[in-house]
């Protein structure tokens, strides 16, 4: 119990620290007044001066930075992400989040699913044929995949599957039916999934090989259990622990990588939203998405921990 309280505290402190860092950076390096009001902020007409005064009051811009931060934090915790700066109409940020979050979520989930679907069989096969030619080749392949930068991979996949073969569409349309959208998300998801699959496969393979050398495996084999059964039923489960850990931790990395992929394949998700928002210095959006990403990251880590302790009773806290 103590352990979880500690975890919780650490996570909360982490989130606070991240938020402070972002809030500070944006407000110190940018200028919120101009972002909100645009040219009116530079204008000298009385109507504009009124607007400036109103904005300063509404957004508490005259208050010191720490106070603004605390206000923002209070709002955020109650679910109020504020309004988008400068967008005519200043719709609440939560609208944007609600619209875009599912798309990014779909992308990440698809990517992880694909990665697992590729990695597990790949690992099983190469573990069964450890150190033989097929394994050696696969090792090289996975190494190559990990080394390939994700934007380069995106370009290559786009070229081969989108242009040369024409199997996949090059654009994403949010109004298309759900299934079509999944189809449109496939190539970007694959771009993220391939290097991840390579990482997972390497890890899983190593673990499988180690597990295969354990006594209980030899026992099962001596009892006449087939190789395949041994692999799938007896060796896989225990070998999954590291895989699960890395799987969870990698989600954070995937989220980062998805920014670029979303931009390249023009998927209107959170990743492309935050990139655009940073360029436009739309602070509330940036802050909101950063918090979401970091919270997701922390949550995933916690979930991984929980799953780990649940699966393996041997793990002591």
């Amino acid at each position: 119990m103590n352990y979880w309280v500690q975890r919780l505290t650490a996570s909360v402190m982490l989130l606070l620290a991240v938020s402070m860092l972002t809030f500070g950076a944006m407000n110190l390096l940018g200028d919120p007044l101009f972002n909100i009001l645009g040219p009116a902020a530079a204008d000298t007409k009385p109507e504009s001066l009124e607007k400036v005064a109103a904005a300063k009051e509404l957004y508490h811009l005259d208050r010191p930075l720490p106070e603004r931060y605390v206000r923002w934090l209070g709002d955020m915790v109650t679910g109020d992400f504020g309004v988008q700066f400068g967008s005519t109409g200043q719709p609440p940020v939560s609208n944007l989040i609600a619209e875009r979050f599912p798309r990014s979520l779909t992308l990440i989930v698809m990517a992880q699913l694909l990665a697992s679907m590729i990695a597990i069989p790949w690992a099983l096969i190469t573990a069964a044929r450890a150190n033989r030619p097929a394994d050696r080749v696969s090792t090289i392949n996975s190494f190559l995949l990990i080394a390939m930068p994700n934007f380069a991979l995106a370009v290559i996949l786009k070229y081969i599957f989108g242009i040369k073969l024409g199997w996949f569409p090059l654009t994403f349309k949010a109004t298309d039916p759900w299934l079509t959208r999944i189809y449109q998300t496939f190539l970007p998801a694959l771009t993220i999934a391939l290097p991840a699959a390579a990482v997972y496969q390497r890890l899983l393979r190593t673990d499988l090989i180690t597990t295969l050398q354990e006594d209980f495996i030899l026992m099962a084999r001596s009892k006449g259990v087939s190789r395949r059964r041994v692999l799938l039923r007896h060796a896989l489960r225990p070998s999954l622990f590291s895989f699960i850990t890395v799987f969870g931790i990698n989600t954070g990395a995937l989220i980062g990588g998805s920014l670029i992929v979303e931009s390249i394949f023009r998927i209107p998700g959170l990743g492309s939203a935050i990139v655009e928002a940073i360029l436009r210095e739309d602070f509330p959006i940036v802050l909101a998405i950063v918090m979401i990403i970091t919270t997701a990251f922390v949550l995933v880590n916690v979930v991984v921990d929980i799953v780990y302790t649940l699966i393996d009773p041997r793990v002591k806290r």
Partner: protein
Amino acid sequence: MTDTIEKRLGTLFWVAVGWLAVISLLAIFAPLLPIKDPDAYYLVKGVRPPYSPSGTHWFGTDQDARDMFARTIYGARVSLVIGFVAIAFGMLVGGTAGIIAGYLRGRTDKLISFIFIVFLSFPSLVLAILITALLDRGLVTIALTLGVLAVAPVGRLARASTLSFAEREFVTAARAIGAGDRRIIIRELLPNVVVPMGALALLGMAVAIVAEGGLAFLGLSVEKGPTWGKLILFGAGSRELEKSPWIAFGPIIILFITVLALNYAGDRIRSYFDVKEIGL
């Protein structure tokens, strides 16, 4: 990459190192080399660029008739500088912090570790974009930004290494004979920690180079001059890929091989020295 223990670095390792050396030399001596001007426009009247690879233009030209081979070489200059500065900064700041944390333990360690974790949980690309978008896009800023991002991973490794070494006999022995903290850090710990960090340096350079490419794809790389990321970006439009794929693929291939070489070399060094560790 290896299951069996290898006491040698292997020929492939030296091939990788060779490639890196070649690229570095080409990059450093680029202005002296008999290659075309990367910024010049080699327009041929009446024929519209891009020109495909040929005897005059080994990698072809881009849409503005600029020689891709020269641009790729000059792009290497930027990428290598960024990689080097970023990792050097990361090692200097992160390494120092990590060693101190690992050695001193206690509250210092807790604080430094916490800072590391904050930076590690922060989606790094977002941080990079934030900083470059809010400040400027000069070579130094971008290199240092990536350096800042390198601090946490490097520091964490330094700390872990230090922790494991700090328990060793030679440290205890040094302390027993009355050696001060500073002496112990510099003389006993540092040489040992440097080795795994050296391997990390190569891997880190690869990451930094790739990160620059990522930034370029978001339009946020160095403002002036060719970089690998920018070159690939210019060639990555649907029309380019369809009709003149060489624009993107020349730099992609060079980038890929370089990153591969860095990864491989770093990996080999790591397993080589790890093995030595076990042998101790």
